[in-house]
């Protein structure tokens, strides 16, 4: 499997909000590695401040990292400018969370879907109109939706438009940042089904960013769990959800309210607040909240290391950034 996307050692910091000469910095990403295979879906899950959206923006070329590399199909994206960046962007398209905010309210649906065709001058204007109609059909909308404005659509329809617009330039990778978080469950199911169908039919890969573990579990081939700018665990979906190893992953899975009254939580899986990424904890970022911490956790930064023997060669290795490696759950 040649990787479509290969992220190595990505570091991003921002100036913290506020002013002053010696402003602190937000440590959004602190050395992140991630691999995504062609036609696969990699789920990226984490809570506020985990840096998952920043990672998505780096892959889209919308955020310049301080350090590290983003290889897309063998091409380094970091530092690309001008036409080279434009050429790569055709192949990496975003789908955003808020389907209303991601469509220009002044534009018709057709114009939004056409935006990348216009940018790259694909075909004649009538060709583009035809293509818009094909794309709308592909995402389950009728051609006359092209003349409507976003406010005239439901949330689910807007997200279909967002997906059609992302597909227009024929991307190999779609970076979807919380694409179904703003939608009701029944609509969410429709959009997830649509994305799965598009992946089957078009072979497009997804980097799927979400805070919702059950959604990530449903859509992903591989999953990475992020906490305060670091990936703490990466594995095959089945492997990760069946045998979570990192104490944070375990707590996160435990905290998800599952719709089964017989599987009620008897204790709070994780106490304390998520620390601020402005002043992240030393050593392992998770150590202040970790039930299993040992003395060295506050000093040493754990690296992602393979665990377990479950993986054969064609599986994604199960990687965990925790020196207190736990035995897999039965």
């Amino acid at each position, binding site marked *: 499997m040649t990787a479509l996307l290969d992220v190595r050692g990505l570091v991003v910091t921002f100036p913290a909000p506020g002013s002053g000469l010696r402003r602190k910095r937000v440590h959004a990403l602190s050395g992140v590695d991630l691999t995504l295979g062609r036609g696969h879906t990699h789920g990226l899950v984490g809570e506020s401040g985990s840096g998952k959206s920043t990672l998505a*923006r780096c892959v*889209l*070329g*919308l955020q310049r990292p301080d350090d590290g590399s983003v290889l897309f199909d063998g091409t380094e994206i970091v530092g690309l400018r001008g036409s080279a960046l*434009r050429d790569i*962007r*055709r192949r*990496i*398209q*975003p789908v*955003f*969370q*808020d389907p209303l*905010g*991601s*469509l*220009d*309210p*002044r534009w018709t649906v057709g114009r*939004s879907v056409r*935006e*990348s065709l216009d*940018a*790259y001058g694909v075909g004649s204007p009538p060709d583009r109109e035809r293509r818009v109609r094909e794309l709308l059909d592909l995402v389950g909308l009728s051609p006359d939706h092209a003349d409507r404005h976003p406010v005239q659509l439901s949330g689910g329809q807007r997200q279909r438009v967002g997906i059609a*617009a992302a597909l*227009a*330039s024929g991307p190999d990778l779609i970076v979807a940042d919380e694409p179904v978080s703003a939608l009701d469950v029944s609509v969410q199911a429709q959009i997830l089904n649509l994305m799965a169908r598009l992946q089957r039919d078009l072979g497009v890969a997804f980097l799927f960013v979400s805070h919702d573990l059950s959604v990530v579990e449903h859509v992903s081939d591989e999953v990475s769990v992020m906490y305060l700018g670091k990936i703490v665990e990466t594995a095959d979906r089945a492997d990760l959800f069946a045998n979570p190893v990192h104490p944070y992953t375990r707590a996160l899975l435990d905290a998800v309210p599952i719709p089964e009254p017989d599987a009620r939580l008897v204790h709070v899986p994780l106490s304390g607040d998520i620390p601020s990424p402005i002043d992240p904890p030393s050593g392992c970022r998770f150590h202040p909240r970790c039930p299993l911490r040992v003395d060295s956790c506050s000093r040493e930064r754990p690296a992602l290391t393979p665990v377990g023997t479950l993986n054969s060669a064609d599986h994604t290795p199960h990687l965990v950034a925790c020196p207190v490696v736990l035995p897999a759950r039965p």
Partner: protein
Amino acid sequence: MTAKSIPAGVTAVVRAFFWLPRSARAGVLILVVLVIVTLLAPLIAPHDPNAIDPTRVLAGPDLGHPFGADALGRDVFSRTVYALRTSLAIVFASVAVASLAALPLGTAAGYFGGWVDQVISRPLDMLLVLPALLLAITLIAIVGPGSIVAALAIALIYLPILARVQRAASLVVAHAGFVEGGRARGWSSFAVLRRHVVPNALGPLLVQAAILAGFAVQIEASLSFLGLGTQPPTPSLGLMLSEGRDVLTQAPWVEIFPGLAIAVIVLAFNLLGDGLRHRLDPQGMVS
């Protein structure tokens, strides 16, 4: 005549007019009437505005001179019509210049942020803290008085206010998904500004410009009143107020009619500004 034979521009204007709230439509109508009056000033004014008539010094209103005559026997109605022309020209010119300068400055400051914002916003903030009239008087002291300088002075007062509004509006739009989306879909930053940011951020600027236009009449009047704006004998509303002050007790009409004209202009722009605010600035970005 069918709708198809009407040029697109006309239907757009008509549609924009009826899209406004009723009170704002009244403001627009008043302004349109005033502009027509100033354009047709030579036809409407019964007399030469600068013709001195020693026999009619401070003569009261009558049928031939509905607003009476001033201290030099000049017809106040004719002078008011021409003064309207000067004053409205200064108002439109100053607000247009300020808006056109504020648009790129505010948009760039809001969209790019960081050092671009600092470089643009800090000098504008300095302009903003100076008292408006002091700023105008300083400029006029350097360049010399006159209508064009008065217009530029008003533009200079308004530039930081309008740029700040445009900056705030652009800042909000800059974080919308469709702006990032535009870049990801292959457009340059400049194209995204033109296609997404400016059209969506323009509303508050228009609202603020309309409201400020009303006050511009007053600033113009103040400057002319102080002798720093339009120079005699060219009539302007402020200049007429200044002239009328001396004879206020004997011949109030010299003061009242240009004063009323100012009030009507201020009212019209405020009606328009409030209506636009209602439609274009629901978040209340313009204070």
